[in-house]
């Protein structure tokens, strides 16, 4: 069918884009969702969603975490069936029962978490499940080459996936979808795992796809990215579409307000509260682990830093570079081979986890389902978890379920945990509300040190602001915080000191007052080390600065 072709290379979100949205063209839109409603256990329901995506455009679907973007895309990809509403593809109303239906109609999805087999080659991964299309041999290889060249993906078919970096894996995922004949690609939060330089490369790929007449639906909650790459924007708030925007006519602030329905909170920390009293000192920490191939390697190597009272130390790094192991070593869940951990002048290197918690370490774990909650237990038992020896949960070895219940009611109230009661299981709450419960629980025991791993991941904007406020307030009262986050804006905005972790080592440090996400990003990929200056003057004193000088 005839598609309204766009000029090949587009500048970032300028007038040409606007033109394309103003005249929808003669052909029917590639995707049209009307009146979609979906009730889904535990999270905000999708109700009355309207979305129109024109062929040959990049359409951003944006909204805060938990607004219902992913649910909507699962509906479009046939993974969920809508309770009401219609899906129209290229002018034809369809019912999608399975992802196979969606693929058959030219819709492909690139998931946030990659679905690739590490021990297979790129070629094998691409043909897996699609052997009938072009076989598994040279014909398939030629096809992959052809697609790769056509869209500038730069995929090499014969390398093992395990040897690829995150950005390359993502391109393989995109290629996999194209190989199956997709004309409309859904990318679910594709930039969450990328550093800024990789994001730019991805956007170039997307423009390439668009220039070839493909349609991209791009899910994101990052305003800057949305404005730079999208032709049209649809905003979802609380499960419903609240408006559309044209990037060239929209400022980030307007878009943010549309997303949130109120003023956008900022993670920025104003005045410094850093003292010179050390709260946590880690020195010479070394940890070896055996990886899946049986090779022993150092996952933590010579880690040393100090967090003072009232200081937030932000740890940047691509996931899997030792951050999780560092947290577990500080929590006493892993025993390091060498090094010491000192909390408030007491050596806790050998202390068990419970002692460390009693001594005042609060812990917001990265994976709340694995480490932070008992999913099948009621909320009030989850409130006890991790603090069973402390008041109000127990007295002299006996549980005080009445006091624990009362305190759970308080946390639910003060931390705005949306739940019909405290007897429901943790599994029935949405992710954001589970997180609020955890934050409330950890803050209720006046921690001296808070280890916050991705504290606002999957949390809606209102709760995000609240969690930031909680951290800031406690910091003012002398709390030391170890903050780990993939959200570089959060990291830069909240931290007093920044460190970058790469392959188990602290390779760089930076001043959050001047650093940009791009500069931080290059250190995260190992391209830069030492003290990161905004003026790009890498020096070699990576262990010297402890952050006391950022006042």
């Amino acid at each position: 069918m005839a598609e309204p072709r766009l000029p090949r290379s587009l500048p970032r979100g300028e007038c040409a884009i606007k033109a394309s949205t103003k005249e929808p063209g003669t052909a029917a839109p590639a995707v049209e969702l009307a009146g979609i409603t979906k009730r889904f256990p535990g999270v905000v329901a999708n109700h009355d969603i309207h979305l129109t995506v024109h062929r040959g455009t990049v359409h951003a679907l944006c909204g805060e975490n938990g607004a219902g973007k992913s649910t909507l895309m699962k509906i479009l990809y046939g993974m969920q069936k809508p309770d009401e509403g219609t899906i129209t593809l290229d002018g034809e109303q369809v019912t999608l029962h399975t992802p196979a239906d969606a693929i058959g109609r030219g819709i492909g999805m690139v998931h946030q978490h990659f679905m690739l087999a590490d021990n297979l080659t790129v070629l094998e991964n691409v043909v897996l499940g699609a052997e009938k299309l072009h076989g598994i041999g040279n014909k398939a290889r030629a096809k992959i080459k052809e697609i790769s060249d056509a869209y500038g993906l730069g995929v090499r078919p014969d390398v093992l996936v395990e040897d690829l970096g995150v950005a390359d894996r993502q391109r393989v995922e995109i290629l996999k979808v194209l190989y199956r004949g997709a004309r409309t690609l859904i990318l679910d939060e594709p930039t969450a795992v990328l550093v800024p330089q990789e994001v730019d490369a991805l956007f170039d790929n997307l423009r390439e796809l668009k220039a070839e007449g493909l349609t991209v639906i791009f899910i994101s909650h990052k305003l800057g990215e949305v404005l730079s790459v999208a032709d049209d924007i649809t905003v979802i708030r609380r499960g419903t579409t609240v408006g559309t925007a044209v990037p060239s006519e929209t400022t980030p602030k307007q878009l943010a307000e549309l997303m949130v329905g109120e003023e956008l909170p900022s993670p920025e920390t104003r005045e410094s509260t850093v003292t010179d009293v050390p709260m946590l000192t880690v020195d010479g920490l070394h940890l070896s682990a055996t990886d899946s191939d049986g090779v022993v390697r150092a996952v933590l190597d010579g880690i040393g830093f100090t967090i003072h009272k009232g200081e937030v130390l932000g740890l940047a790094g691509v996931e899997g570079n030792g951050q999780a192991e560092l947290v577990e070593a500080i929590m006493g869940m892993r025993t390091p081979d060498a090094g010491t951990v000192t909390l408030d002048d007491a050596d806790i290197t050998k202390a068990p986890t419970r002692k460390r918690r009693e001594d005042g370490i609060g812990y917001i774990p990265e994976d709340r389902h694995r480490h932070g909650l008992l999913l099948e237990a009621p909320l009030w038992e989850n409130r006890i978890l991790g603090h069973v020896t402390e008041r109000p949960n127990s007295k002299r070895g006996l549980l005080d379920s009445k006091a624990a219940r009362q305190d759970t009611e308080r946390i639910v109230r003060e931390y705005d945990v949306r739940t019909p009661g405290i007897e429901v299981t943790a599994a029935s709450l949405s992710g954001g509300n589970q997180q609020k419960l955890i934050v409330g629980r950890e803050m209720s025991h006046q921690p001296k040190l808070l280890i916050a791993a991705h504290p606002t991941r999957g949390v809606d904007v209102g709760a995000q602001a609240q969690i930031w406020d909680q951290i800031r307030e406690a910091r003012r009262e002398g709390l030391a915080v170890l903050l780990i986050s993939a959200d570089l804006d959060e990291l830069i905005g909240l931290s007093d000191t920044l460190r970058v972790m790469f392959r188990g080592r602290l390779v760089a440090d930076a001043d959050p007052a001047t650093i940009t996400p791009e500069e931080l990003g290059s250190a995260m990929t190992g391209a830069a080390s030492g003290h990161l200056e905004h003026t790009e003057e890498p020096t070699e004193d990576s262990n010297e600065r402890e952050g006391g000088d950022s006042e």
Partner: protein
Amino acid sequence: MKRLDKNKLILGFAAPVLAIVAALAITSIIIAATGKDPFHAYQVMVDFGSKSDSQIWIVNKATPYYLSALAVAIGFRMNLFNIGVDGQYRIAAFFAAVVGGKLAFPGIVQIPVIIIVAMLVGAMWAGLAGLLKVTRGVNEVISTIMLNAIGASVIGYFLQDGRLAVKEGNLIHTPYLPDSAHFFEIPTQPKPVYGFVVVAALAGVAYWFVLNRTRFGFDLRTVGRSESAAQASGVSVKRMVITSMLLSGAIAGLVGMPTLLGVSYNYGTDFPTGIGFTGIAIALLGRNNPVGMALAALLWGFLERTGTQLEFEGYAQEIVGVIQGVIVLCVVIAYEIVRRYGLKAQQRKVGEELAAQAGNSDKAEVSA
């Protein structure tokens, strides 16, 4: 909130009712398939089971079953499958009988000594499996079943004339306990009920209290629900594995005591075996709940008692075994179905209530 509680109550009853109805239906079909009248069989069972001597027999039978189920349930509550209660109670009863036979203290000392020896031996035997699990990563199912075999061999070695046992006619057994070691009986007609039923009841209360009301119990249940969350919360999972195996073994040590202190007064080749496995079925049936397991133990006793009577009425003797198996399966399946349904229903409900709230506040915003 109130409505949720009401639902919870209904769901709580739904599972056992569903299980009983399903089990009755299936056994009826099976009995009918053997060419007999199932309803007559139930009539016989109820009539015979409700006789007073049957009732006493059932209670006496249920006492060790209940203790065995408690021992298994401690493991279940933290995701450990202690399949070795059988070996633990036998080796515990054996050494308790040996020690008791050599001592002659007054009853107030003698009986506690025997019981403590039994609990210690049981705990040690189970503790071996715990130790193997935390140090070498040996699965407790494998190690406890092996320890059952080893325990039987150890008993077989010592239970010989001239070693730790004496010969009496065709039977070989440990020397008789002195009279002071005889546990009290509850004088009922036509036969007495073992006094150990009181100990079993106390053990049930202690089980409930420790698991539900103490920090230790919370830690134990936490490990059972999520090992990773337990570890992050500060529970030493390894220590908890050892402790719970020790506890489970100690309770297992009590299983042989009603027989040893109330009936046989020695450990011989005719000492009852297999109670440890019955305990697994009863723990499953009673859903690890102290009251539920008591009812399950009584039901088990009832089925065994009335099964013999069915034989006289011309029913196949295997029918009781089939009924027992069907009941356990039905209960396990019914509870799992109801649990999943309950969880889903709750999630849906929470989702709906929150959506309704959100809807209301949206409208409020619009009108404001």
